[in-house]
Structures are given as structure tokens and as C-alpha cells.
């Protein structure tokens, strides 16, 4: 691979790379605002200026300048190299670039940063971005001077509702146009635009358009400062109290990588941010994905119940005993329903139990939703492929609809997840089965049909993995402790198995994972910690 030199360090690059991208690949940060690895080059912030000392076929340009000579107390003529934006300058073999080591670059960045803060409001104490703001980071690393301007700063609109999800503050905006470029390039719909120039610039919703669609929150995510904020997180907490956990979105079959930002003191997820993965979601996520943390709290089943339609709480021990009693009566005339919403490990446990007891397997799933060509998959279920994988069957698992039409064969049902993509009639049929053991996280259509309900942990509260539509198996980590009485589903199923005098051989989560790896001979990709390479992930250190 060809190489070039950055601050004396030899760095490999791919043909066509710009300086900043080659450095980014090598895990080196060149300070920048407007450049984003997933967007086109705007080169408007001038923060990434570097000094190119020499390059083949490159004639170093120098400018005539006047330098203040403190001894003579006058300006003396001097020379200064013409600096180049690292985001725009293509790398060539043997190029010698100075970034951190050049005093000219340091001075230029200091001045750029000073101009950016000239009209900036004193907002850090009330700004959601404080703590992960690039203006703050670069103030400390590049500027470190007091304000010189004594005039009243320019005032611009604050708290502008771009949509019900996005709030804009023009005074904090540095006009990097990342949000504008995101809409135009990634979504293909120029919903945002910029008006005026100089001091008066402002991002606006394009004339005749609305900020709408499934990717509004991404405009806030790409914003390097606190100009765009989301209404769901706005003024709700502070980022340095959050701890990021690597997770995978349970919203659809794409399996976007993400950060679950948890406040460990309150054991509460406050927001979700995309996590870079070039193979899956690149740098992006959809709004529904970033709001999936709602399902950890809404419509949760937090205690066990015994009896159809019962609302009385029971202990998990009693409920497991009751379920075991009902299932042992049914013998092998049991339908086991895997879930496309639960992790592969959870499904593996149920499939294993079904296998040793001779139960038939079915699959429950949520109905399709509106997919698109960017990220959203039509299949709303994160793990249809994983459930299929562990069932051991080559043909697709029969759905709940099939089960409803062949109920005569079964005297009991044990189901993972309360979701069901069937009509009312079929549901009523399922409710007619004598014994119905349901292991569920959230309330769903199947809940009222169950005779025994066991609460299980959500994906954020247990370890596990999802297999996405492309067949990529991705693991996620535990971010919270399980709500109420709920336990990880693999644990509940192991308890049921024990009651049914079966030993699945699972004592800890690691046993289930090992069994999964042995069976599929695929190790779920580790949740990557990509802090070192991705500038946008400067933020996960929130809370450090």
C-alpha cells in the first residue's frame, strides 16, 4: 500500500483518499467540524487546515505576510506557507504533511476557533451537547484564549421547532452544513437549507418543504455542536452522567449497531445513538430505531401471572411450577413457539427443550412495516434468521397462523414473546388451548390468551445476539438490570426444563453462547469498540 507522512508518522492510504480520511483510517484525528466520513466534502469550517511540506509534483505555495516583531515594535515582512484543508486535499505517495507539529497550523486553527466562538451564546450550562461538544473540545485543545470581542454578539432565533422531533438554535450553529448534506445526500431529499451569509447565516427548513420522514434525529446526531437538539432528549439529562453500552437495534431485520446511553444511577436508558459499522448501518440509524428504548419501559410485563386473563401477581417460582405441571400433563402434544423478536440464545434454549421432549416448533413475529432503501427493512423482526437457524429445520418454521389451523394436535402451547401476526379468529383459537405458557417482555396480543405468564428480560437487560437479514450474527451487551421479576428468557426456559426433568446443560449465559457457536460454527461479531477510529464516537466517553 502507498504511504505518506503525517507529523513524521508513516501512514498507509488507499488511492483516492483525502488526508483526513487516510488519517481517520489510521485512527488519527485531524481536528474538523464540517467533515463527516459518511458525507461529501464541504471544506467550509477550515478547522482541518494542514501544512503540506512537500509532495511529488507539488510546488509549496507561500504567502507574503507581516509579522509583529516585539523587539523592533513594528511589523516586518515575512513568509507563511499556504495551508490546505485536509478534508479536501488528496493524498499522494510520499507526501509530507504537518498537522499537530506545525505552528502555522496551530495559529490558523486557533483563529478559526476564535471566530466560531465570536457570536456563540453562553449556553453550555443549558445545552444538551455540553460534554460532547466539539466546540468545547477544540477550545481546550486549539484555542485557550479569552474573548477579545467586546461588542454585543449577533442574536438569532433560538428554540425553533423544525419538526416535532428536532429543535434548532441558530445562535449555536456553526454552519458546517452537515445536516443539510445528510438530508440531501443520504436521504436524497433536500429538506434543510441555509440562508443568509456572514454573521447572519442560519439553517432553515427548505421553502415549501417540511422536515419529516424516518431519519430526522440523524440531523441532530451529525450536528457537531448543540445547534440541533432532539425533543425526546432535550433538557432531560446530562451526557457525562451517561454510560454507553454497545448494543444492536431490535427494531428491524437490518440490525443497526448502536450505543445505549444509560444513566447507571437510575438504571435508565436516556437515548440511543448509532454506532459505526461499515457493513451494516455505516453511521446512521432511523428515528424508530433510536426510539426503541421506549419498549424497555412501555407495556412491560414485570411480574408472573397464573390463570387466563388474571391480573394478580404471582412469584416466578410458583408460575414456573404451574407451567411445569401443565406442560408435563400435555406430554409431547405441545407446540413450542419461537420468537423472531428474541435473541438467538433464547430461541436456542426453547428449541433444544422442544427437541428433547418431541414438541413441534412454530415461529411468532411482528407484522411487516414500511421499509425503505436506506436502512429500514420491511421485516420488523430483528432475529427471524436466528430463530430459524437454531430450530434445526431447513424449511421456514410454520407461523402462528398455521398453528391456529392445526390446534387439534396440541393440548398445550409454550410461546416466547407475546407478538402475533394473526387475525382475531386465530387468536381466539389459540386461547382455547388448555394450557398456554407465555414467556414475554412486553404486552401483546397473546398475553390475554395465556394461562401462565412469565416475565423475561428485554434485549437491553440481557446479553445475546441477533442474526440480521443479511445473515450477519451480531452480539449485544447488557446495559441494565432486568425490570421487576423478569429474568433472561434462556434462564426461565432452563428452569422450565429442570422442572420437566430435562438437563439442557446451561448454567450461565456463556454456556448457551458456547452451544450456539458449536452448532452454527459462527461466532457472533463482537460489539466493536470503535472509539479510537470514529470522530463521531468521541461522544461515548460521556460519563468518563
Amino acid at each position, binding site marked *: 500500500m502507498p504511504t505518506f507522512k503525517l507529523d513524521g508518522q508513516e501512514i498507509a492510504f488507499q488511492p483516492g483518499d483525502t488526508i483526513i480520511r487516510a488519517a481517520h483510517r489510521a485512527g488519527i484525528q485531524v481536528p474538523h467540524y464540517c467533515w463527516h466520513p459518511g458525507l461529501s466534502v464541504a471544506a467550509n469550517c477550515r478547522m482541518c487546515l494542514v501544512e503540506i511540506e512537500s509532495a511529488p509534483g507539488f510546488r509549496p505555495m507561500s504567502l507574503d505576510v507581516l509579522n509583529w516583531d516585539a523587539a523592533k515594535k513594528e511589523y516586518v515582512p515575512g513568509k507563511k506557507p499556504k495551508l490546505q484543508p485536509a478534508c479536501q486535499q488528496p493524498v499522494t505517495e510520499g507526501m509530507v504533511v504537518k498537522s499537530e507539529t506545525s505552528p502555522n497550523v496551530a495559529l490558523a486553527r486557533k483563529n478559526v476557533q476564535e471566530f466560531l*466562538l465570536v457570536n*456563540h*451564546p*453562553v*449556553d*453550555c*450550562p443549558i445545552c444538551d451537547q*455540553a*460534554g460532547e461538544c466539539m*466546540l*468545547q473540545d477544540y*477550545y*481546550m485543545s486549539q*484555542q*485557550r*484564549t*479569552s*474573548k477579545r470581542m467586546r461588542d454585543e454578539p449577533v442574536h438569532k432565533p433560538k428554540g425553533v421547532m423544525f419538526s416535532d422531533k428536532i429543535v434548532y438554535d441558530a445562535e449555536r450553529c456553526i454552519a458546517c452544513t452537515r445536516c443539510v448534506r445528510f438530508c440531501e445526500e443520504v436521504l436524497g431529499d433536500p429538506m434543510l437549507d441555509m440562508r443568509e451569509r456572514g454573521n447572519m447565516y442560519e439553517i432553515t427548513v427548505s421553502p415549501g418543504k417540511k422536515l419529516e420522514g424516518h431519519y430526522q434525529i440523524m440531523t441532530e446526531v451529525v450536528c457537531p455542536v448543540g445547534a440541533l437538539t432532539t425533543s425526546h432528549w432535550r433538557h432531560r439529562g446530562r451526557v*457525562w452522567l451517561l454510560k454507553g453500552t454497545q448494543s444492536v437495534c431490535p427494531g428491524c431485520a437490518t440490525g443497526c449497531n448502536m450505543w445505549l446511553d444509560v444513566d447507571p444511577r437510575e438504571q435508565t436508558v436516556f437515548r440511543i445513538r448509532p454506532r459505526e459499522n461499515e457493513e451494516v448501518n455505516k453511521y446512521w440509524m432511523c428515528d424508530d430505531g433510536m426510539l426503541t428504548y421506549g419498549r424497555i419501559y412501555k407495556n412491560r410485563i414485570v411480574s408472573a401471572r397464573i390463570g387466563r386473563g388474571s391480573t394478580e401477581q404471582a412469584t416466578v417460582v410458583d408460575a414456573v411450577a404451574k407451567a411445569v405441571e401443565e406442560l408435563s400433563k400435555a406430554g409431547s402434544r405441545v407446540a413450542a413457539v419461537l420468537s423472531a423478536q428474541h435473541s438467538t440464545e433464547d430461541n436456542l434454549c426453547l428449541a433444544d427443550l422442544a427437541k428433547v421432549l418431541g414438541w413441534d416448533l412454530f415461529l411468532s413475529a411482528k407484522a411487516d412495516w414500511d421499509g425503505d432503501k436506506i436502512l429500514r427493512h420491511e421485516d420488523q423482526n430483528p432475529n427471524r434468521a436466528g430463530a430459524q437457524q437454531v430450530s434445526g429445520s431447513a424449511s421456514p418454521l410454520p407461523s402462528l397462523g398455521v398453528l391456529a389451523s392445526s390446534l387439534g394436535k396440541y393440548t398445550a402451547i409454550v410461546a416466547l414473546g407475546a407478538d402475533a401476526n394473526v387475525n382475531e379468529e386465530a387468536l381466539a383459537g389459540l386461547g382455547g388451548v388448555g394450557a398456554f405458557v407465555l414467556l414475554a417482555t412486553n404486552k401483546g396480543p397473546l398475553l390475554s390468551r395465556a394461562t401462565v405468564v412469565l416475565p423475561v428480560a428485554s434485549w437491553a437487560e440481557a446479553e445475546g445476539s441477533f442474526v440480521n437479514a443479511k445473515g450477519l450474527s451480531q452480539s449485544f451487551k447488557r446495559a441494565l438490570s432486568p425490570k421487576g421479576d423478569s429474568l433472561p428468557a434462556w434462564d426461565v426456559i432452563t428452569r422450565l426444563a429442570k422442572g420437566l426433568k430435562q438437563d439442557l446443560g446451561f448454567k450461565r449465559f456463556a454456556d448457551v453462547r458456547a452451544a450456539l457457536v458449536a452448532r452454527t460454527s459462527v461466532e457472533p461479531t463482537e460489539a466493536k469498540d470503535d472509539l479510537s477510529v470514529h470522530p463521531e464516537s468521541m461522544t461515548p466517553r460521556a460519563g*468518563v
Partner: protein
Amino acid sequence: MEPTDKDLDESELELPAEPMTLNMGPSHPAMHGTIRMVLRLDGETVAGVDVQPGYLHRGQEKMGERGTWQQFFPYTDRLNYVSPLLNNVGYALAVEKLLGITVPRKCQLVRVLHGELSRISDHLTANGAMAMELGAFTPFLWLLKAREWIWELHETQTGARMTHAYVRIGGLAHPPTEDFPDLIRAVLPRIMDVVKESESLLLKNRIFLDRTQGVGKLSKAKALSMGASGPVLRSTGVDYDVRKDKPYLTYGECDFDVPVGQDGDNYDRFMVRLEEIRQSVRIIEQSLDLYEKIEPGSPEDQINIKDPRVILPPKEEVYSTIEGTINHFKLIMEGIQVPPGEVYQYTEGGNGELGFFIVSRGGGNPWRIRVRSPCFYSLQCCSGMITNGMVADIIPTFGSINMIGGECDR
């Protein structure tokens, strides 16, 4: 008729001599700062002793790892709480060494002045308490009266009598008042009058001399092997003083002597401290002259270094400009970014070599802080000093070590 003393054999008059185990402390009022001694007594003689520190352990070093670098200052106040400013300075110097910065001259002199005043207050307390433990209550009250003047002086400068948290990394919390030198000059003679008056009550007092001379002896070899330092080491004849042997701040420019003892007994420790008060006064007087020689407005005439990465911006800027807000925010929320590395910085504390061993892995808080507290090492010598002595001498001997629980147990 009952037998009279005359009828009894001589040996029957002696006290029963069966060995007896006695717990002193940790709640015993004379066991300053909660310490426990398990004594094996043979009559009134101490046959053996097990000295058990740790009852005041608060996990300070561990707490230091949780906070930012600046947030450790209040904890240092609670090490040797009779001379908190010396601890403040010791810790600040350690972090400054790691950062590779040197504070301006005025700041150095203020640190020396406050430090020596603290040392005087430390020695006044130690000597006063030791006298009191021998029954001399008056010198104790007088010396503590003088200590109170020092603390009042500290209060005018730092806002607190005891827990000052006045020093900052790269400077001080706020500049000294304009009359700072005058205040010191006014209080020093008054303190020395009290010292003179108090020593006149003790140094010709037969009881005091008999009960201190030759009591609680410590040999030079033992003191060295136990790692003792400060007055305890110097009383045995070793002239080790960090201010002299490894000068820091402006101590190198001051002319002062290091008093040493001969026998390493309670009397020597008392006298070393007494003389050190006089030497501290010499240092203070010279430092005041240096302090007043600083040209106003010169770079030397600064309290803090000029680096926004270390020093907080003025409050007016924090509240009115974004630059100040960001600077303040970053330093408070993320802390000073100290480069990775290890450092051991030692200074002469009230009780001897006060060392801070700090490991940084970069970032806003320390990875490890270890405090080499001088009285922990002095205390190691304690059992040897007490054994084979009298029970009544335990308290004054223990007092002469000047063990401060907060520093020893941390």
C-alpha cells in the same frame, strides 16, 4: 490482731506481679486520633506492646481516584489536620511535577510562608500536648492560644481556620491580602513571647526534665531502619530535613539550621520541635523580605501560572463569555488533563517527609495516589520506645511522636 507492715516480709509488700493485658484505646482520650495499644504489663512496667493503627482509616487515597485532580485538596487538609497547608502544598507540587510546571515566585513564597506558619502551629500543638500529658496544663493552654493566632491569620487568607483547601494546582485559590506580610510580622513576636514564657515553665522544671530525659529512647539505627523522619529522626542525631537536603520552592534561598538531638528521647524530641519553631521564624522573616522585593506587575508577581488547561478562568469571564464558560466547564467536569506517568514528590511536613506517589494514566483523575505519611513510620518506632518503660510514660512518649490519626491511617 491484724498484722502491721512491720510484721510482714518485704516481698509481700510488692504489688502482685502477674502479667496483665491492658487495652489502651482506641477510644482512650489520650490516644490522640484513635489508636489502640494492647499492653502486656508486669506491674507498672510495660513488658510488651502491640500498637494497632487503622481506626481512622477513611480510604482517602481511594477516594482520590474517584475525583478530579483538584478535588483531592480537601482530602489533603484532613491528613495532618494541624498543618493542612503543608499537605496542600505537598500534593500540589507532586501534580505540578507531573505536569512539568513551576508556579510563579510570589506563589512559591506564599506557599512557604503559610507552610512555615503551619509548621509552627504543628509544633506548638505537639509540644503543648506533651507538656499537658506530664501534668503541665498551663503551657498547653498558652501554646494553643498562640496556635489560635496562627489559625486566625490563616483564616484571613484562606477563609478557614483548619480545612483551608487553599492551594491549587498551578497556583492558589486566591491571592493573599495586601496586609499579609504585616499580619505575619505583627503576630510572630507575640507567638515567640508565648513560646518563651511557656518554655520558662518547663525547661527548669525538675518533674518535666526527669520525666522526659532518658524516657522513650530511640536509637539512630532503629529510627533509620524504621523509615522515621522529621523531628523523631532528627532527635536521634540525623540531620535529615527535606527543606535542606532537597530544597523545593524557595527554601534554597533561605538561611536556616537543622536542629538535631543526641539521645532520641522525649526531651530531645521536645527540644528539636522547640528549636524548629525558631528556625521557622527565621525562614518566615527571610521569605517576607523576598516577598516584598517582588516587583509589582512583573511576571513574578503572579499567584497562578498562565495556562487555561490548568487554571480556572476568572468568574466574570465564566458568566459572561463562552470562552470562559467552556474553559471552566472542561476543567470542572473533566478535570485537568495530566499526562500519563509516575511521580514521587516529597516535602518536609509537620512530622517529617510527606511524600505523594502519584500514577497518572492520562485524563482528568488520578489512577493512584499513595501518601507517604511521616507519622506512620514514626509510629513504627513507638513500641520499642514504650517497652520496658513505665505505664505512666506511655502517654507522653506517644505524644512526643505526634502521631496524627488522619495522616497515619489516611
